[in-house]
């Protein structure tokens, strides 16, 4: 067993991730079986997770692009807000594809403001981000009053725009639904969780998912991406090698804004409402940033972060406090499993901490009947906070993140 664990440690990343994912699904599956909370692994929950996680995913991707170039982007929120307006405005006149473009462009404009402030004027990144959010929110409200009020008789809402038609992957979608319906331990749960990825899709969902590997490819497998990342790791070195640091950072931050704007468009194009609604972003930009940090500034990681956030949010919305309560049970299982693994590896401190956490969570699970809705509503934030606290020391931000850089200042 020890040897096996040791060998598992040396597995390549994808295999380890797959094992961990399998373990998590197993833990969920056991929880479903023992607590009867089928929503934990239902196709509905996974579709909700996709819908709720998508805007966060876009924001997180935006954060990735900007922060990989060394610019902290806490203005994602404001850029998303700008994106919602742009998407609704363009979408009203030109349909869903135009809406996506509109979100992209308006978010990109927000990114441009941030870029000018941080890259050209060397304003502190967080300060500029806060200012961009303020400005973006104000400008959006003003524009909405000006432009949407005559169309919808409501300054806080755009007229309804046309959305995309949903589609499902033929064959797979139905197949998964059939497996899920059989209610078999693990298999059905896995089918339920996967079906969200193949059912009720729209082009913008596909775009969001596709942008994850595309971002990886662009940032890690192209010359441009190498240059862009180098400006976030060591702009002095990059400049000494003839990399135009300022230009690459501009591209990165404007792209970042554009992606955040697409996140806004994803909100606008959500079949729930199809249009601009004041305050509809509601902090998702910040959550996206958290998801990106959660994901260790890596595309696959931020996808996980966004998915986790969407999942927990979807779960608490669909099934309420009882389901979140059941999730505590899953957390206990995971903590105990972690404790066992660490104990095998003779990492006693980690094992003890995991075991203690497991006992604590189980005590909470055992004491209360259901998580009060007041807290269940914020379960995603709570989960993010806990995971960050547990994993923060393994995170590796870009070396030059947030540091000011002036051309020709190197050495």
């Amino acid at each position, binding site marked *: 067993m020890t040897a096996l664990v040791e060998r598992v440690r040396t597995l390549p990343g994808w295999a380890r991730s797959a094992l961990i994912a399998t373990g998590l699904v197993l833990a969920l599956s056991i929880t479903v079986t023992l607590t009867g909370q089928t929503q934990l692994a239902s196709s509905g929950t996974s579709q909700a997770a996709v819908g709720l996680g998508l805007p966060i995913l876009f924001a997180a991707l935006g954060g990735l692009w900007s922060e990989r170039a060394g610019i902290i982007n806490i203005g994602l929120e404001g850029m998303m807000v700008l994106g919602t307006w742009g998407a609704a405005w363009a979408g009203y006149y030109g349909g869903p594809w135009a809406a996506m473009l509109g979100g992209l462009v308006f978010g990109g404009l927000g990114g441009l403001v941030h870029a000018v402030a941080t890259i050209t004027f060397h304003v502190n990144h967080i300060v500029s981000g806060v200012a961009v959010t303020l400005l973006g929110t104000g400008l959006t409200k003003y524009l909405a009053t000006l432009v949407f009020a005559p169309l919808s008789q409501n300054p806080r809402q755009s007229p309804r725009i046309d959305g995309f038609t949903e589609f499902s992957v033929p064959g797979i979608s139905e197949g998964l639904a059939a497996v899920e319906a059989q209610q078999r331990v693990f298999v059905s749960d896995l089918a339920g969780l996967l079906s969200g990825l193949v059912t009720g899709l729209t082009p913008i969902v596909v775009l969001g998912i596709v942008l994850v590997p595309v971002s990886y490819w662009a940032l890690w*497998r*192209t*010359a441009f991406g*190498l*240059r862009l*990342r*180098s400006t976030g*790791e*060591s702009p*002095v*070195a*990059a*400049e*000494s*090698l*003839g*990399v*135009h640091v300022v230009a690459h950072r501009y591209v990165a931050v404007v792209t970042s804004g554009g992606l955040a704007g697409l996140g806004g468009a994803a909100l606008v194009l959500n079949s729930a409402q199809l249009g601009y609604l004041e305050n509809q972003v509601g902090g998702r930009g910040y959550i996206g940033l958290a998801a990106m940090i959660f994901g260790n500034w890596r595309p696959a990681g931020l996808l996980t972060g966004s998915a986790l956030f969407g999942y927990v949010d979807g779960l608490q919305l669909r099934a309420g406090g009882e389901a979140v309560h059941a999730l505590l049970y899953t957390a206990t299982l995971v903590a105990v499993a972690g404790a066992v693994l660490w104990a095998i590896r003779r990492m006693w401190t980690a094992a003890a901490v995991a075991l203690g956490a497991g006992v604590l969570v189980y005590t909470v699970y055992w004491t209360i009947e259901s998580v009060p809705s007041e807290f269940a509503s914020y379960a995603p934030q709570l989960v993010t906070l806990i995971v960050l606290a547990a994993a923060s020391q393994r995170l*590796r931000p*870009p*070396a030059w993140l947030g540091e000011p850089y002036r051309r*020709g200042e*190197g*050495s």
Partner: protein
Amino acid sequence: MSAEAVELRGITKRFPGVVANDGVDLAVHTGEVHALCGENGAGKSTLMKILYGMQAPDEGTIAVGGAEMHFRTPADAIAAGIGMVHQHFMLADNLTIAENVLLGAEKQHGIGRAARARISELAGTVGLAAADGSGARSAGAPLDMLVEHLGVADRQRIEILKVLYRGARTVILDEPTAVLVPQEVEELFATVRAMRGEGYTFLFISHKLDEVRAIADRITVLRRGRTVGTVDPREVGNAELAEMMVGSELPSPESRDSSVTDREVLRVEGLGLPDPAGGRDLLDGLDLVVHAGEVLGIAGVEGNGQTELVETVMGMRRHARGRVLLSGVDVSGLSTMARRERGIGYVPEDRSRHALLGDQPLWANRVLGFQSRPPIGRHGLIDRGAARTDTERIVADFDVRTPGIDVMASALSGGNQQKLVVGRELSGDPVLLIAAHPTRGVDVGAQAGIWAELRRARRAGLAVLLVSADLDELIGLSDRLAVILGGRLVGTADPATVTPEELGTAMTGATR
């Protein structure tokens, strides 16, 4: 005569308040190793930045292979076949070797297989594969290693590799030996000579005359931003060269009568420090004693635990093992501030990062480290008046050249900043001074002043723990030398008798 590889004529560069280069001329023949000598601050680095396109000259022309060039960015210089290896390595730790090499030169061979093949090929030229003993390793593997795992010498080779990959025929090496141990310097020189044989041209910047004489075909000397002259090293002696550089004799640390007492001020027992990253211990079983009136010099190649030793004694590192006793009292559990309050003065190695608040006025910098004790700190409050008065005193006594004590610390030159720091750390009657590289990056005048102050303090009974990479400084100032290697003290030496060569051997562990 064939066209020069590089020819600079009448280069002038002014910074606010300073003329860095004043009509500098420099001609480098193709296929030679041309050394550029000068003291710190003579304008060498500025000249090279201009040649490399990082800064534009205010006046003057640059010609490469006979054709006049205008470099606006390093890319222009690279295109003209000029490459530069900076003194401070321009490597991104979090990128792989291949990525560091490819960065900025992706157009040459893409970033795929062809590029990697070319890198592997050039790795041999710069001696990279042989140096880390991994010559037999498959070509793909080490290129994907993160640079942060590499040692100094390998990093330098990657820097040269970067330059070659870009097709440079003329390579600027900016103080390449500053961070190398003597054996590594030899290896570097061997590589340079081999490459000269292949037709590469080198511009070698240094102020270490012995090294320059060992490698250079011709030497150009700069002083205060002006060209003093170009000479053949076989025809001029060290003394002449030194005089060209500083205009007079080098300020050499002379020996003097001992003031060492037998009163122990600092005793370090079994000091150990684990690596937070999980590697080998940074410090291991380190014992040393410094007496009142004694200077203990720590010699060693940079990165062998000097920084860690100093910071552990100062209480800035957590999880340290062993004991630190100050005048017989165990201070191991005390905070940095408590240790300072008990009479430790500290001149850190990197003054802009560790000693000064650049955006604060001089008087506020006087407060730093003394905020808790009289005359400046009282009952948790700061006595601004006392701080100002004492800053005036330091400015006067230590010859800090500044128009006033309200200017920002960052506006002062390096030497004046360091004089302020030394003056501050010597105030409040310390019993122990820990000085790390106290004259690094300061001008000659300031260097002499700082040395004089250290000697004066030593005479007054101060114990000094001196860490320096400058062997002349170490030998000249120390009463005793200890050699640090890999986080352990591996030997001691008497500065009166030891030679730099012997010391160098001990520092690399070659005799062990």
